């Protein structure tokens, strides 16, 4: 790596007057003060509210306003108290008073010289936030997978109710939403925060404190959600359709508080990602030289930023139905259930792409490295992402074909839904074209590529059925749908995430990923995944509705197979998790660039220093200039010459 460096003379930057002792509360706040603040606020709110609010107060729409309001305030107090305790509001207040952070403060907040403690604090360094997101995603996957095991146990035991029906309904709902949140953050969180700034050659994200804020909001959002299981549960699936949610007990409030908070977190993260990508790319990194993973992250961030508030406000209004007794979704008083469904799916569908797009982009990024070939038709890939972002805004009604809210809407939305398969086709072609005539380096991330493509094929073909209204009239709300979106989200999303994390693992942790055990886990999970969900397709075709805990004998065999498969997925995932943890703790020390990749994040040393790059790099070529001239071109040019000569001779 040849480089000539020109050092400019360093200029002293005037610093704002230091107010009082350096730092103050910002230096002391950490997760424990946060927990104290949050739990304290919650307990106090509940204690006071319990005195004021009569239990079981009934009002016009029969909702238990008193109790619901009490629980809502308790959860809100937890979130706010936690954010206060961890120091989230110190920054804005200092800003308002004009006590800006000095450079020293900023470096301290970025975790300078704090050792491991920085992972437990309101740390602004994007690398720390990335690791925090990774751990959070793993924890959520742990929860979700555990719930999945319970669900499959119930469905496998066809002869009895293993769980109380209400608990089972809460279980499927919690599994759904926990997994959705985990899938949303698993790529855009760890890699979007840790890798992306390195990849574009920036020193940090555009808004470091918002970065920390987005993570800790997510952290504060999770407990209310998981607590719902001991508070009567969600009972109406992860979609939380109203008015069933208005009927459900206080567990529902946990869900709503979680979504409202999580939407803030996502919006803030989106603002941060987009701003960073647009304004902070290294000198010389034109859009045409931007790695494709950056483009994918950008696309996902845009969709999340624009559409998440719809979901958030759907939950705000639903919560106000429970808490204030308004009637947005209560038909007796002029509410409409279709309003909820529309607001929900306005996010609900783009959100699927928020999950799938970054994972796919990451896959494209690592294919190039492991095939030692340039990315096939970069422009087409960008066009694919752009098309997905564009069309994803106008397909939400295909989740509502059977609601009858506008039977005629089936025609245009079937059209748009079929159309979105074309930009996705672009991405498939890019994958195939990159594979074309390449010798793949047989490492775990590359294996993930093959796995993902297989799942994409099956998920895509079954998606074609569901996009068609007549077929959906049979499939809608059946197990077929469940199997389909597991193929898209888990098959194409989670397995991609596993590969992508394995690929950037050395840069993030400074250790090599233990591929021997990792591969065992990965392939176990992958094969078991096929067993589970292919037989679930069969159950769906036979006409098994989803979200049931007892069903006709006709579906028993396929459900037994699914359950066995699901257990094997669990085993595989545990093995993979074990490989992840052990190699994190005691893996081989990773060199700076173990894969010999061209992108910028591999050019700085590992572990990455606080300022990422000792010197800001300047990009002079796109990161995909691998490969040698195509030998066959010689042959063809020869043919052309012969042809011309014959033409001349004539």
């Amino acid at each position, binding site marked *: 790596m040849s480089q000539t460096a020109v050092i400019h003379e360093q200029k002293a930057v*005037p610093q704002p007057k230091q107010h009082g002792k350096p730092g103050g509360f910002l230096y002391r706040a950490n997760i424990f003060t946060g927990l104290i603040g949050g739990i304290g606020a919650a307990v106090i709110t509940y204690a006071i509210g319990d005195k004021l609010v009569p239990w079981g107060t009934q009002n016009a729409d029969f909702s238990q306003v008193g109790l619901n309001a009490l629980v809502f305030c308790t959860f809100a107090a937890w979130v706010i108290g936690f954010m206060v305790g961890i120091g989230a509001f110190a920054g804005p207040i200092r800003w308002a008073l004009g006590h800006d952070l000095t450079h020293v403060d900023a470096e301290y907040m970025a975790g300078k010289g704090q050792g491991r403690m920085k992972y437990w604090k309101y740390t602004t360094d994007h690398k720390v936030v990335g690791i925090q997101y990774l751990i959070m995603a793993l924890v959520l996957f742990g929860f979700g997978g555990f719930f999945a095991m319970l669900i499959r146990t119930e469905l496998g035991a066809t002869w009895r109710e293993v769980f109380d029906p209400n608990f089972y309904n809460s279980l499927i709902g919690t599994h759904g939403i926990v997994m959705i949140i985990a899938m949303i953050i698993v790529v855009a969180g760890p890699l979007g925060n840790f890798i992306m700034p390195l990849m574009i050659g920036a020193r940090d994200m555009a808004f470091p404190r918002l970065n920390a804020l987005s993570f800790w909001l997510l952290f504060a959002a999770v407990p209310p959600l998981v607590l719902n299981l001991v508070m009567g549960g969600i009972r109406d699936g992860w979609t939380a359709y109203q008015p069933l949610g208005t009927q459900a007990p206080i567990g529902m409030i946990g869900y709503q508080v979680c979504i409202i908070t999580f939407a803030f977190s996502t919006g803030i993260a989106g603002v941060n990602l987009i701003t960073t990508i647009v304004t902070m790319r290294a000198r010389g990194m034109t859009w045409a030289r931007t790695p494709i993973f950056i483009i994918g992250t950008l696309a996902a961030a845009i969709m999340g930023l624009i559409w998440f508030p719809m979901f958030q406000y759907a939950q705000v*209004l639903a919560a106000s139905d429970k808490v204030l*007794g308004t009637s947005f979704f209560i038909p007796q*008083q*002029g509410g409409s259930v279709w309003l909820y469904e529309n607001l929900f799916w306005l996010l609900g569908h783009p959100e699927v792409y928020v999950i799938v797009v970054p994972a796919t982009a990451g896959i494209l990024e690592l294919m190039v490295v492991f095939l030692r070939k340039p990315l096939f038709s970069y422009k087409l890939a960008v066009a694919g992402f752009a098309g997905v972002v564009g069309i994803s805004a106008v397909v939400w009604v295909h989740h509502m074909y059977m609601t009858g809210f506008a039977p005629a809407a089936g025609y245009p939305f079937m059209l748009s839904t079929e159309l979105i398969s074309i930009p996705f086709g672009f991405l498939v072609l890019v994958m195939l074209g990159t594979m074309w005539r390449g010798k793949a380096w047989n490492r775990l991330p590359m294996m993930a590529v093959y796995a993902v493509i297989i799942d994409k094929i099956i998920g895509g073909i079954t998606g074609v059925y569901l996009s068609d209204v007549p077929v959906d009239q049979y499939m809608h709300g059946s197990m077929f749908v469940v199997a389909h979106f597991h193929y898209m989200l888990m098959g194409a999303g989670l397995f991609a995430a596993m590969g992508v994390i394995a690929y950037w693992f050395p840069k993030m942790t400074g250790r090599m990923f233990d591929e021997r055990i990792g591969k065992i886990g990965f392939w176990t999970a992958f094969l078991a995944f096929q067993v589970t969900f292919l037989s679930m397709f069969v159950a769906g075709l036979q006409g098994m509705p989803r979200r049931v805990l007892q069903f006709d004998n006709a579906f028993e065999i396929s459900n037994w197979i699914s359950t066995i498969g699901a257990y094997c997925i669990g085993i595989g995932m545990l093995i993979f998790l074990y490989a992840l943890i052990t190699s994190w703790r005691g893996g081989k020390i990773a060199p700076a660039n173990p894969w010999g990749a061209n992108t910028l994040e591999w050019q700085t040393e590992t572990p990455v220093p606080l300022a990422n790059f000792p010197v800001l790099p300047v990009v002079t070529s796109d990161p995909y200039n691998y490969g040698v001239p195509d030998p066959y071109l010689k042959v063809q040019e020869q043919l052309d010459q012969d042809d011309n000569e014959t033409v001349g001779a004539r």
Partner: protein
Amino acid sequence: MSAQTSPALYPTTGEPVEVNARRNRLGVWLCIVSDATGVVALLIAYVYLWSLNVNNGWAPPKNHWAVDWPFWAIVTGTILGTICMWWGVKAIAKGHTGRLMVGALLSSLIILVAFIAQIVQLSTFPFGPTDGAYASATFWLAIATAIHLSLLTFLTTAIVGRTRAGRITPDNHSHARLVAMWMTYVCVAALLGAVFTTVMKESPNQNAPTFGTFRE
């Protein structure tokens, strides 16, 4: 962008202030987009319920619709505050720090008044939140404006504070400009709410089927 060429450096990161300003401007724009989606969601809810009139539950009891002028008073207040802020921003761009002080102070006072007015309006609606769909939708449009205004009171006061602390100087006044941008957006949001609540009262669908019956 070597160090000599940059006139003023941002203290915390040492980058030229205009780099920082550009970044923050984009950030604020994105925040506006995101927040606007939320407001749009509320408007969708309003129009949807207004057009459906499910179970004839749109109209408030005894057709006690909300009075119009408070909405418009609050909107006017917000716009006035915004104008003051812009005046101050334009002034400091020319180097008059004192005028920004005046403008920010004025606007924060006006916004505070508007905020209080909004709270008063919320508490004096001729219906409760449980009185049907119109009541619910109107309440939430008003609550959204209230939240926006409370945020604005903080921001405008903060600008006063920062100007006093000498953090907003003629060559580094981007924050004041950003707050003014955000205020402009809030004006639009409040205006939309007022327009909807004023224009759409009586539901167009007067023969909705009663709940649970099969009348077409």
